[in-house]
């Protein structure tokens, strides 16, 4: 039995890196500290895809890695406009090769941000993002706002490690000298902990950000008695808390990015942060979901100049979300094959996009089966990053960390190697045709 410390979790955007596990017979037998219940479950291991498979006449047939990779390359090489989607639950090394493959094929490369914090990126492109690292919040923050986010359920260690419950330099007494404001449409595990809970009407985030901005900028007189289900007195109370805070932070989740005014909600949230900054230090941060959704956006941005939804069919990078984003491309029927890696559009894409995805050849690369597996034609299992293979990832605050390898595998292949081998096969096919 061996104890391994400083294990880095490959589950959510918190990327906790102080996990201690026990390993025996190449299995994690115990998670001794650091991980939340979901992270623990991943570390302890569960059912995975056992071998590569090809779908023939509707039935999945077990094949070798070579066969599956060859078939994947043939599909992609024959395509006019393949979609290479996912990339958020794998490492940057795989993302780098992924962008190169998309470039090589003349396809579209996109990650899950397209259907989660894509609107946040559009807002940043409009007004920028005043932010900080999570440790800043741990050491300094005295007012924390979670807006449209429920970390107690979705990012279970977030409050303990980085925000409301954590202890830092100027916050040595933990939550004692901090205030927590939660804004949501329903009561949540997080809202139960709040000093102030604003239970707002569905889709009224934009109006409430505007009202708070107006009050902070000295125009409280224009705010009506009730905004989005919240009484003006309560908004004035929150505004006073904002004014008194020395260091404040707004964390926002999918409850804001995908309702009502979408990216305009986030623009307004950022403008609210700018207004709050007139009184104290204020930052804002998206609650990124997958452990490396942020990392793909980084890689894609330094390689192509644009963070997601990049169309490379013309040979140069073309970025126009709405046109080049996965769900829109699919709904228009504009892709003739798809490589899905480290994600699950089967569970998350809208119907119109899924209907087309079900019609075209789909290659899936993932350690685990998910609804996408149900219609995938080529299935290639990979190592579990952060357990069986190492690699770079970016935490939700853009801090880069390196996942560790804690178990051996003599069978499964890391994502980056699978994608690289597909690219080699594609190049071999092209060379052959050129002969």
């Amino acid at each position, binding site marked *: 039995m061996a104890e391994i410390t400083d294990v880095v979790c490959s589950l959510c955007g918190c990327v906790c890196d102080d996990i201690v596990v026990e390993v025996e017979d190449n299995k994690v037998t115990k998670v001794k500290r650091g991980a939340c219940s979901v992270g623990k479950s991943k570390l302890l291991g569960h059912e995975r895809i056992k071998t590569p498979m090809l779908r023939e006449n509707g039935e999945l047939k077990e094949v070798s890695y070579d066969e599956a990779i060859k078939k994947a390359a043939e599909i992609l090489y024959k395509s006019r406009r393949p979609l290479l989607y996912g990339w958020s639950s794998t490492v940057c090394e795989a993302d780098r090769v992924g962008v190169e493959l998309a470039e090589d094929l003349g396809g579209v490369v996109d990650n899950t941000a397209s259907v989660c914090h894509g609107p946040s990126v559009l807002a940043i492109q409009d007004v920028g993002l005043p932010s900080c690292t999570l*440790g800043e919040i741990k050491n300094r923050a005295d007012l924390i706002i979670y807006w449209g986010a429920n970390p107690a359920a979705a990012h279970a260690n977030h409050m303990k490690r980085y925000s409301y419950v954590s202890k830092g330099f100027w916050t040595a007494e933990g939550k004692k000298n901090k205030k927590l404001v939660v804004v949501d449409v329903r009561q949540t595990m997080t809202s139960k902990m709040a000093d102030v809970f604003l239970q707002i009407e569905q889709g009224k985030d934009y109006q409430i950000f505007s009202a708070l901005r107006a009050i902070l900028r000295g125009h409280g007189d224009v705010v009506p008695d009730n905004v989005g289900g919240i009484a003006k007195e309560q908004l004035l109370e929150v505004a006073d808390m904002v004014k008194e805070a020395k260091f404040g932070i707004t964390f926002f989740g999918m409850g804001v990015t995908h309702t009502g005014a979408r990216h305009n909600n986030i623009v307004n949230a950022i403008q609210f942060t700018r207004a709050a900054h007139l009184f104290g230090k204020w930052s804002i941060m998206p609650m990124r979901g997958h452990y490396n959704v942020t990392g793909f956006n980084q890689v894609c941005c330094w390689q192509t*100049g644009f963070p997601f939804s990049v169309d490379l069919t013309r040979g*140069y990078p073309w970025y126009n979300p709405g046109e080049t984003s996965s769900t829109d491309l699919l709904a228009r029927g504009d892709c003739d094959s798809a490589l899905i890696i480290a994600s699950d559009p089967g569970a998350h894409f809208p119907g119109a996009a899924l209907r087309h995805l079900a019609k075209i050849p789909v290659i899936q690369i993932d350690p685990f089966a998910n609804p996408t597996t149900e219609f995938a034609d080529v299935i290639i299992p990979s190592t579990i990053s952060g357990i069986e293979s190492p690699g770079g990832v970016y935490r939700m605050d853009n801090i880069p960390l390196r996942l560790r390898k804690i178990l051996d595998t003599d069978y499964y292949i890391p994502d980056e190697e699978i994608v690289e081998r597909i690219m080699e096969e594609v190049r071999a096919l092209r060379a052959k045709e050129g002969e």
Partner: protein
Amino acid sequence: MAAELLIRNGVVYDPINGVKGEKKDIFIRDGKIVESVSNPKVIDAEGRVIMPGGVDIHAHVAGGKVNSGRLMRPEDGRKGIEPKTKVCRVQSGYSVPNTFATGYRYARMGYTFVMEAAMPPLAARHTHEEMIDIPILDNAAMPLIDNNWMTLEYIKSGNTDLLAAYIAWMIKATKGYGVKVVNPGGTEAWAWGKNCNLHDTVPYFDVTPAEIVKGLAEATEKFEMPHSIHVHTNMLGHPGNFEVTTDTYDLVKGIKPYRDRPAMHATHTQFHAYGGTTWKDFESQATHITDYVNANDHVSIDIGSIVLGDTTTMTADGPMEYDLYQITGRKWTNCDVELETGSGITPFLYSGKSPVNTIQWAIGQELALLIKDPWKVALTTDHPNAGPFIGYPIIISMLMSKKRRDELAEDVHKVIFDRTVLPSIDREYDLYEIAIITRGMTAKTLGLAEHGKGHLGVGADADLAIYDMTPEERDAGKIQKAFLNTKYTIKAGEIVVKDGEVVAAPPGKTIFVTPECEQSLMDEMLVTLKDKFDKYYSVTFNNYPVQDAYLPNPYEIKAPMRG
């Protein structure tokens, strides 16, 4: 790669070896300059100008804030779009080019080395990941070590030995090159929304920026460091900051550097040479700076010259970016980094119609033209802060041609005639001096010359540029064109650019320094540092250092403690 190469009939400018426009053959074998070759491939330079590969002493090309700039500005990305070729990956961007374009465009200008000027230690892996994807160029990065709590505490306690141990650990942990200082104390103050001038007290830590600069210079010189502290002084971009700038230079006057270089490199000095009290009475104080530099040998500078047009400003000087955003109202990104540093990013348009921008534009040139000894001054635009690096050829053409400067003075705001002295300066740089401020001085100041950069002596890296011009060329337009796209760029003996086109894109190497500190000092420092990790950092001590996987082509320079 041809193992042997002979370059004939070039006119060579190699300042480090005192070669001043001599017709001379160059012999290359296995990526190095040698004395002779036996069976080479021959390039006939036909009388063209040859210089060693350019060495950029200060640019922001890789890492968190550069990429935040790209992410925030798709409109800039759209400007530089180019399709992939057989050799090149896709390109995008003008002021914030993607990593591939960064490598190709530098190489096309004859540059073969770039120093990433500001690496936030906690995000060092990011900087290195991007440098892997910058083709052709050798590179290095300087970690920010001046607003770190450890530094501030050791400055307060006056323990320079432990500060030296901390510096050593930090440079090693980040695979960095030297000590970068950016608005010392001011960036920590910015974590509470404040700023600091040179003699202000940093909130809570009870030290002054002046003490930080002096302490860091002393601690740095305890090692055989190739480069001095590299300083972005306080009050960047503020009217009337010129005295703060030279007061900062004064701080290192008595410090004896390890080797024949100054004890401080002061960067993007254009932003620090401002007179007046507000933007209304704003004026150039370049002469105040150049008088100082001419009279003293303990400081070198780079100019940070403006390239007129739109750009993306980015710096660890968070409060400065906030001030700039307050002026323009354009988009603004900020990222404070726990226990260490911060950063801000905002777009900016330098317009020749604006009196302030015109004065700024003049100052960069004044600095270069009024410093008598070119070995004290480097050509930079603080890319992309004063303008993108792709503007270097414009600046070269202006420094080389009084006629061009006079023509341009007519196009910009007339304030140039009464609040700057630029129109009265007659000096014109010659090619030898241009070679000094773009490779000789920079390689020497960075301590890279003995590691084969910036010169063409036997044993040096075979990095060189053949510019498509003769030494007699006086036409500023033709000079600019020649410096934008080389006839040939050769990197480690391989032809990477031919007739302005990238024909090969091998990976560059990352040069890093390993300061070697006495173990007892290191152990004592680590007790304090580990406590910081346990209590205040959001990552663990063991997960912090940059792993070897992030430097696929490493080149180590050891820096032992001085005897």
